[in-house]
């Protein structure tokens, strides 16, 4: 399969991969999920697919490879590989196996949790054992995966590591067609650059091409020979994201959603600014952050304003003293971490992949109690495990987790998932509860139609916002967010960040774990988790000017 003699290659005019009028419909009601799309990728080219969350980017990739989930089918359209059509069914399966490397959107869910990392990466490799081991090692080194990881099982690695393992797995056999669905959503900037480098090294190589779905405009601009923008367009009434609120005037200009559902944009010149961007205004100054909450001018949501309880006092809402975190197998992640989250404050925790950021959030939420140290909520001790917390404490600390696939109950609709905390914590049932759940979903930018969908019928970005809405529904004092903008397009991400910014003035203090500099830039204080220590802001990255920091359109816009 890896043979590629020049003779095999057709004339330069024939694109390597082409699709004509590729259409996807839902099987049970015939609704169009993906309107007709044409695309072409030449030899050695990289095609970036961008577009709003829920526009059908993942569906397009699945339609290309003929791996649509149950309930969707491809009634029309042809896929051509080197000019020859690839019929759906068995020929497509053989083609996939021989030619394609695929990185899914939820790598943690795609990797067999019981397999060792080296076995996962090397599975598709066809050479002998020694060559395979070398190849696996080289790939792990290339993607900055520490060698000790090779003997771990996929269930024991972090989200960002899982994403790189999945990428290494798809790269291992050096496939002719590489299909990547948001390969950098869980990665920090430096690691994302390694991924970008891996993709770039395939550019211009004869007989190779890449399809890349990403929300990272910088990545798309740097890597793509062509960009395909999927817009929601005509489906807006049924499937669209909620229309961006009035607070997003700049959005449509940047991401034109044309009525012609899809269009091709020719090569975008590489971005001029390689701003390493980051967060943080100078030294941490938590006390000045909480803007005066008065006057209900800010369109806060009702659930949040209810929790205004301990007015913006300098006393921290949530603190840790001497927090010790371990991995499940006992490796220390954090020694004696202290942090203070003031009322109305926003604290971001950044750090390389696999250093324990998610573990920190889980420890605070009580999901995985810390190995040692003290937690304080409003100055009072907070028990480590959820079992020993009372309802008031449970309501006060809400976590919106990272893995959107398992975070939502597959059997419940989005509306029901959001309505449940309303019932449990606020006794809102029946019509008022459903109404409030829809309000919350709208607040995070999801239209009311989506409240009847189950998680499998939502896109990754939509699921992430349902998880956020569910956490907001409790009316917490502290909102713990694990990668709140991963998988969101810039417009939706900005909507979410703006919402959080408004909410925190009168409601919950926010602690986010993030790789996204735009998200970190919204925080009052940035802590960097590395080398088992929490240090104020990353030492290597320069500050941005205050103007840039306060610019409300923070998300990745400055790269685009």
């Amino acid at each position, binding site marked *: 399969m890896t043979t590629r003699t020049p003779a095999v290659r057709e004339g330069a005019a024939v694109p390597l991969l082409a699709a004509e009028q590729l259409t996807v419909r*839902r099987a049970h009601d015939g609704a169009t999920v993906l309107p007709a799309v044409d695309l072409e990728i030449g030899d050695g080219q990289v095609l970036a697919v961008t577009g709003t969350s829920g526009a059908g980017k993942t569906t397009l990739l699945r339609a290309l490879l003929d791996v649509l989930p149950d309930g969707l089918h491809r009634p029309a359209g042809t896929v051509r590989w080197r000019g020859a059509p690839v019929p759906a069914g068995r020929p497509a399966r053989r083609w996939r196996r021989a030619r394609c490397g695929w990185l899914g959107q939820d790598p943690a869910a795609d990797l067999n949790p019981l397999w060792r990392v080296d076995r996962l990466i090397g599975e598709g490799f066809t050479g002998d054992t020694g060559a395979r081991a070398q190849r696996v090692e080289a790939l792990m080194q290339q993607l900055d995966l520490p060698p000790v990881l090779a003997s771990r099982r996929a269930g024991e690695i972090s989200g960002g590591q899982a994403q790189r393992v999945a990428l290494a797995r798809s790269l291992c056999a050096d496939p002719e067609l590489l299909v990547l669905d948001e390969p950098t959503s869980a990665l920090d900037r430096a690691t994302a650059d390694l991924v970008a480098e891996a993709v770039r090294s395939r550019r211009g190589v004869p007989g190779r091409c890449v399809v890349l779905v990403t929300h990272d405009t910088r990545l798309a601009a740097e890597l793509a020979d062509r960009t395909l923008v999927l817009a929601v367009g005509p489906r807006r009434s049924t499937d669209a994201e909620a229309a961006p609120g009035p607070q997003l005037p700049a959005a449509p200009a940047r991401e034109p959603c044309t009525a012609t559902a899809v269009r091709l944009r020719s090569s975008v010149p590489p971005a001029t600014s390689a701003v390493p961007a980051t967060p943080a205004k100078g030294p941490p100054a938590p006390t000045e952050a909480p803007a005066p909450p008065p006057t209900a001018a800010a369109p806060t949501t009702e659930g949040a304003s209810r929790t205004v309880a301990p007015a913006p006092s300098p006393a921290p809402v949530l603190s840790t003293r001497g927090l010790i975190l371990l991995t499940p197998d006992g490796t220390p992640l954090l020694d004696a971490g202290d942090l203070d989250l003031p009322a109305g404050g926003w604290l971001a925790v950044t750090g390389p992949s696999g250093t324990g950021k998610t573990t920190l959030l889980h420890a605070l939420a009580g999901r995985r109690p810390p190995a040692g140290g003290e937690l304080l909520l409003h100055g009072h001790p907070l028990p480590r495990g959820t079992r020993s917390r009372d309802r008031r404490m449970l309501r006060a600390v809400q976590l919106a987790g990272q893995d959107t696939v398992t975070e939502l109950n597959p059997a419940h609709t989005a509306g029901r998932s959001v309505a449940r905390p309303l019932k*449990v914590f606020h006794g809102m049932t029946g019509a008022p509860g459903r109404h409030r759940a829809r309000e919350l979903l709208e607040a995070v930018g999801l239209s009311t139609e989506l409240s009847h969908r189950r998680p499998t019928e939502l896109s990754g970005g939509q699921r992430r916002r349902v998880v956020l809405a569910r956490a907001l529904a409790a009316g917490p004092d502290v909102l713990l967010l694990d990668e709140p903008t991963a998988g969101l397009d810039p417009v939706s991400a900005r909507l979410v960040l703006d919402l959080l910014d408004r909410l925190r003035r009168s409601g919950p203090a926010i602690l986010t774990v993030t790789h996204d500099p735009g998200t970190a830039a919204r925080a009052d204080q940035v802590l960097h988790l590395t080398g088992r220590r929490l240090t104020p802001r990353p030492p290597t990255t320069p500050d941005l000017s205050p103007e840039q920091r306060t610019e409300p359109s923070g998300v990745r816009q400055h790269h685009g």
Partner: protein
Amino acid sequence: MSRSVAFLSLSAARARRTAPVAAAVVLLVCVPLGRYAAPHPPERTVAAPWTPPGGRHPLGTDVLGRDVLSRVLAGGTQLLTLSLLAAAVAVVCGTALGLAAGWSGGRVARGVRALGDLLLAVPALVLALVLATALPGATAVVVAAVLAGAPLTARVVGTQCAYLRDSGHVHAAVERGESTPAVLVHEVLPNLRRLVAADAGLRLVTALQIAAALAVLGLGPQPPEPDWALMLSENLPGAALNPWALLAPAVPLAGCAWAFAATAGTVAHTPREAV
């Protein structure tokens, strides 16, 4: 062309899904009513023994000259009722045990598994035979099917429950302070629906087999009574004279097993949108 192919394959898939459900519903309605459609009283001798099919006896007569068609129509009720009851009890007990074991883990899980292993070590039929010496036939069938089936259900349900216990939505429910029963009912059980449905089909077939085996061995319904399984043993000696006396009860017996197992499989594999 591709559109018409897609259309055909969709409707074929739908037919595959609906056929077993329709068959199961028809059986459930018709079997208890069959007695009233019988052309002759099922327990009365109406012709010479082993009369071949023809005339007033479309399926001929049996060992005592009773009308085979009438006996087949009247003979499925007890078998079906017993199997359904036994399967339902087995699935409910097994699911409850499995949830308890999978959720609490540790000692409870080990206890449930040890108990299950003990019961599974005894062959179901031996268990049923021993029970039948002490209990009435019908009770023995139900108890044996539950003892043989519930441990299997408990094991699959327990494994899946332990897996789900670690997923984010279950953690989120625990972090909301929901009670354990609420978490199990709202977060865990809905996601076990397909597994339990598929398992219920297997339990039903096992119960049907146990009930039929006891009846064939003479430990179930007693002779004048019409019963599919009993008919098999009664009419075996005359298989050469009137094979229909043997085939006629065998077909609905196998049909029931297929219809219920396939219905369970359909529920287990229905695409989520259609549920």
